């Protein structure tokens, strides 16, 4: 009698342990699924932010400075850059370019030699390319993860 009770107890103990292991496993699985979902959402939000910020910023800047001979594609510190000048202020220009993993802007005298990394950081970006096309500028932006997004900005003055 005593022997039988002891055997049943051992089986129950193992069953309890198994059940507890299952509980722990599923709890962990749900937790990991949540963490994975959060990582995916955060990455998408970052992507959206980088692409929309870069596109909106460049489009607005180009439209804002859309005057004759005010928009040009140039090079700054070995990387492609957009140079924007304002009528009456031709000695100064605003350069928009990518350096040190960020889209940057700098306003300086045209003859000053500046360090590209001294520009104001706008948004995280791995690269920026410009191409003059009829009626505007074609822009290619690489976001922080290295994914490329291309867009076109119409320049009415057509001076790019």
């Amino acid at each position, binding site marked *: 009698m005593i022997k039988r*009770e002891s055997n049943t*107890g051992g089986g*129950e103990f193992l*069953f*309890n342990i198994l*059940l*507890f292991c*299952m*509980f722990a496993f*599923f*709890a962990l*699985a*749900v937790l990991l*699924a*949540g963490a994975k*979902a959060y990582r*995916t*959402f955060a990455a*998408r*939000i970052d*992507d*959206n932010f980088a*692409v*929309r910020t870069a*596109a909106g910023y460049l*489009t607005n800047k180009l439209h804002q400075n859309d005057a004759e001979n005010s928009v040009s594609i140039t090079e700054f510190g070995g990387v492609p850059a957009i140079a924007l000048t304002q009528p009456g202020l031709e000695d100064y220009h605003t350069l928009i370019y990518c350096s040190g993993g960020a889209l940057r802007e700098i306003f300086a005298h045209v003859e000053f030699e500046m360090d590209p990394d001294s520009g104001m950081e706008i948004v995280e970006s791995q690269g920026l390319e410009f191409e003059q096309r*009829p*009626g*505007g500028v074609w822009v290619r932006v690489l976001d922080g993860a290295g994914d490329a*997004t*291309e*867009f*076109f*900005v*119409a*320049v*009415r003055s057509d001076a790019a």
Partner: protein
Amino acid sequence: MKETRTQMGRRAFLIELLFAMVAMGICAAICLAGFVHSDRLSQRSYAQSQSVVRVQTAVEQFKADPMAAGVSADAKTLRYYDSEWNEVDAQVEDGYRLELTSCTEEQGLYSALFCMWSEEGAALYSVETKKYLPARAREAGV
């Protein structure tokens, strides 16, 4: 046959554990359903964000040369994209389609409606734009 205190304790623990498992199962099901819903929302938000950039490009190209779009009341597909938003030649599964829904001209005022569609036929983003071209520019083809 009377149960001993130890046996009763074991049974109570087992029932407690089973209840915990059932409760855990219900919570997990609710959480997973929530994750799936959030994932769909996040995907849609990402798709809308990408749509805005692509439609904006189409609008800018239209503004650069409205006559190139061609005046037509019929919808015209301009570009196809795959699920990763790379431009492709034809409609693909889980892809997107940029459409010039209509383009009209009245006394030099060009109006166009651009729309981005998902493969399921849901409109992700649409925008109407106008551009005025004086007669001289129209004749010159600018």
